[in-house]
């Protein structure tokens, strides 16, 4: 019985990554200086007499995984749970309280969460909701390349861990964070709308103060940012966090510049069924990009197959039997065991590649930001203070750029089919497999611990 469960959902998995870049290459956007008439209410929105627009401590633009992750951790930290939070997202799922049914077909949009992310989720109390839903731990990971020379198999036991990670559908991750948030008494308001414009005072009240020779006019400099929404509502916030993905409106409005790479690649995602239960994450480096097979529970696996756009177009139009054959062909050859997925039916479609680590970096950012805010509250800082965010930036930028460069390096290394290079790559993979300290380092880095392999 081989059945395709679903392969018809596009998702820009790359979004997290870009967002993260926006998130840390510039401060998440903050602004300072209150209007003199403004009133702050620690327990939620309160009207300002002039504009009647509610005022919040923090406005999170984008109630996706990262935005909800931030809201949850703010709600759970003892020093931040009193803050009033606005979440701006037009996604109706945020207002929907029905839970996901166990027998719903799996969502092909899945994320591989690392042990570090798992412990962050446990910390905020969201993991227990995931455990009630479909999720799949994997304790083995096999990486091999297309020449068949290089081969590495990681085992959770190598690093004295139970699991190497867990594959969870994105909608389950999101739902769990939402349930977790609803459990808390965080003063939150969800605005089911989109951000239209953002009017902010000077990025630093202190700078503005320093530059003025007289003290007049200080009162006019708001330390609040005014957010106008597409449905005509508006609100004020001390701190605005852009968690609205790769095409971040916050970033655009704030004029935050980003630097980055362009990948002329797409990924095809779909769910496949195996003949036996799978607890191993498979990844094969092919000349056009990696093909990953992630267990998602029972006998199902999720395929993320990265390739160039032209190729993805032809794969998408294939019929299911051809697609299965193509997948099996791509997994064929080389040493070691390999999965033999059997798929049929439906049509594949494309997403952006390198989705796997993005969400972990995004969660890492969200929790780090929450920690910095909490530390700021502890010493009585204004949460919109620039120095706080500089700390966040310093904390996250290094970590994220290192991870991105490594992912990028992997892709570049495998995009060339050249004899000697093939041999070096294979040797590197073997090295990673047979030099235990190196292997342990790589596993713990991939697990989300913020240390670079080799250098520690």
């Amino acid at each position, binding site marked *: 019985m081989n059945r395709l469960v679903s392969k018809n959902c596009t998702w820009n998995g790359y979004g997290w990554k870009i967002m993260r870049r926006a998130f840390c290459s510039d401060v998440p956007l903050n602004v300072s200086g209150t209007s003199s008439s403004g009133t702050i209410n620690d327990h939620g929105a309160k009207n300002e007499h002039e504009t009647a627009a509610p005022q919040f401590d923090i406005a999170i633009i984008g109630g996706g995984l990262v935005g909800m992750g931030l809201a949850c951790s703010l709600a759970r930290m003892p*020093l*931040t749970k009193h803050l009033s939070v606005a979440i701006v997202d037009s996604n109706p799922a945020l207002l929907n309280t029905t839970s996901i049914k166990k027998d719903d077909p799996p969502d092909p949009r899945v994320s591989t969460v690392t042990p570090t992310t798992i412990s962050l989720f446990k910390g905020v109390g969201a993991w227990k909701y995931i455990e009630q839903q479909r999720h799949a731990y994997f304790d083995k990971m096999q990486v091999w390349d297309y020449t068949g020379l290089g081969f590495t198999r990681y085992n959770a036991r190598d690093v004295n861990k139970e699991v190497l990670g867990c594959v969870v559908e994105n909608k389950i991750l999101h739902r769990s964070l939402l349930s977790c948030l609803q459990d808390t008494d965080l003063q939150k308001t969800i605005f089911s709308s989109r951000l239209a414009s953002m009017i902010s005072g000077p990025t630093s009240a202190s700078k503005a103060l*320093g530059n003025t020779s007289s*003290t007049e006019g200080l009162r006019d*400099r708001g330390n609040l940012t005014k957010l106008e929404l597409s449905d005509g509502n508006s609100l004020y916030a001390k701190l605005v966090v852009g968690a609205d993905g790769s095409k971040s409106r916050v970033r655009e409005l704030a004029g935050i510049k980003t630097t980055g790479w362009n990948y002329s690649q797409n990924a095809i995602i779909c769910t496949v069924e195996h003949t036996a239960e799978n607890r191993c994450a498979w990844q094969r480096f092919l000349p056009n990009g990696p093909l990953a097979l992630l267990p998602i529970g029972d006998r199902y696996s999720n395929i993320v197959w990265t390739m160039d756009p032209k190729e993805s177009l032809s794969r998408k139009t294939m019929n299911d039997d051809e697609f299965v054959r193509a997948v099996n062909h791509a997994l064929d050859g080389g040493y070691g065991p390999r999965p033999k997925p059997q798929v049929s039916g439906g049509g594949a479609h494309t997403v952006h590649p390198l989705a796997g680590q993005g969400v972990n970096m995004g969660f890492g950012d969200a929790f780090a930001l929450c920690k910095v805010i909490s530390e700021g509250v502890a010493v*009585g800082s*204004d949460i919109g203070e620039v120095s706080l965010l500089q700390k966040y930036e310093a904390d996250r930028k290094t970590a994220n750029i290192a991870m991105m460069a490594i992912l990028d390096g992997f892709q570049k290394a495998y995009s060339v089919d050249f004899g000697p290079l093939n041999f070096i790559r294979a040797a590197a993979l073997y090295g990673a497999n047979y030099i235990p300290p190196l292997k342990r380092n790589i596993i713990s880095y991939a697990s989300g611990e913020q240390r670079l392999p080799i250098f520690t």
Partner: protein
Amino acid sequence: MALLTRIRTRIPLGPTRICPLRLIQWRPYSNHQSTSAPASSISSLNQTELVKFSAIADSWWDADGPFRPLHIMNPTRLAFIRSTLCRHFGKDPNTARPFEGLKFVDVGCGGGILSEPLARMGATVTGVDAVDKNITIARLHADLDPVTASIEYRCTTAEKLVEERKEFDAVLALEVIEHVANPTEFCKSLSELTVTQGATVISTINRSMRAYAMAIVAAEYLLQWLPKGTHDWSSFLTPEELVLILQRSSVSIQEMAGFVYNPLSGSWSLSDDIGVNFIAYGTKTYG
């Protein structure tokens, strides 16, 4: 001033030699002596200080201005205050406003960079400073945020508050004692402002050779973090002296910590090295 400049150009940096003169000249925070010393000389000294502080008062809240060192040191000072005072008053440090219901006075509050965080931590704060313009700036800045707008700022001195018979649960004088004319009298005033079993927190710079190199040569001359002449080495107190002075004013020191600057990360941290910057917390033993 003119005299000082001339002397400084003639005599190379020798703390012991320039001390006696500078000791007289550099007293930004003039207070208690106004009652005991001849009024004429005091008012002129006071005037010098007022002019000096007024000149840079606008930049109190410029995180990159002359008060930058205080800004970057501030979270570290507050971390010490938070942990010691939470323990002292039996408050839960895991709350956002642990000092709710407590009356604090920030003596030598400047632009209010300590008063505002204390108010956000829930304390009922009175900020006093002898420089009128500091108070104006502090007032304006605190009004920007309703939480800090409740701070009472007054242009006065610790001594005058004592005369008014004011009392506070905690009295804080951070980076002030090295600027006062008579530390002993100053400490006595701080003690009198503290309720019995209340807390007194003082931070200053040690009179060590290392402090001379760091706080004066490095901070004022090499790095130019501080305006030249901000500090006078000879008026620094050693931790031992501070403990003694406070003891005589019936404040017994409970805890002391040093501030250490890490030039690589550009941040301060608490340490047991009290060789340069240090902070002390004591309790008022009897009334």
